[in-house]
């Protein structure tokens, strides 16, 4: 029987003559869009102060006074007054910074490479993303039906982060399960 892996049979791929070894090398060079491993540590380091700030902001209306800036807004729809478009407005950007840092830190934690990043991990990652999406939207559907007025605004605010949060929990739980086997 012919052993393909050792044979010098030539294949034609993209008008180029290549051996079986070349095809394996090409397949190995597939791109993954994950962040470097150190981003996980950066993400965790960013998340801790961000969570602390978020708790202070949400429960005690805490804002840094030195973060009052003139910012560019595409649409500004204040409670009192008319809607403005493409204008500079005065705003304290504490809440914007908290949201930006929370999203960045969760993305860093969720999508940084593991020490060994092989196809099983990629498979678990994909399944976890699917699972997290289902859970996130099931929770959102429940909230749409049973939460009203300002409570729903709170739900929408948390929903910005829950997909990533559910993914991180699901993925890490599966990885712990795998490592225990």
């Amino acid at each position, binding site marked *: 029987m012919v052993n393909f892996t050792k044979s010098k049979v030539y294949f034609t791929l993209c008008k180029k003559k290549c051996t079986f070894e070349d095809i394996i090398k090409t397949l190995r060079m597939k791109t993954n869009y994950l962040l470097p491993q150190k981003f996980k540590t950066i993400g965790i380091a960013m998340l801790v102060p961000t969570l602390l700030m978020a708790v202070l902001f949400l429960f005690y209306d805490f804002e840094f006074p030195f973060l009052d800036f003139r910012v560019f807004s595409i649409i500004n729809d204040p409670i009192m007054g008319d809607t403005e478009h493409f204008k500079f407005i005065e705003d304290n950007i504490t809440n914007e910074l908290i949201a930006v840092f929370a999203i960045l830190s969760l993305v860093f934690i969720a999508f940084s490479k593991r020490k060994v990043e092989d196809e099983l*991990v990629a498979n678990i990652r994909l399944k976890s993303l699917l699972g997290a999406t289902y859970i996130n939207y099931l929770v959102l559907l429940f909230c749409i039906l049973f939460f009203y007025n300002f409570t729903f605004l709170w739900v929408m605010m948390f929903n910005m982060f829950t997909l990533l949060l559910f993914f991180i929990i699901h993925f890490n739980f599966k990885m712990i399960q795998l490592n225990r*086997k």
Partner: protein
Amino acid sequence: MKNSLKVERAKKDMTQAELAKLVNVSRQTINAIESGDYNLSTILALKISKVFQVNVNEIFLLENKDL
């Protein structure tokens, strides 16, 4: 899909960790393949067959339920 990876490893007196290192995956992945929990990719099957110097279908076999 069933496989005789454990048998092939035993023939070569190779541990899961050694095989994992040779094909550039984690030991857990080899364990998951052996126990049938994970259906590996074609490229990994080819790499493993190359390590044992046999054809892919000598290690990995389709079962009736796969057809």
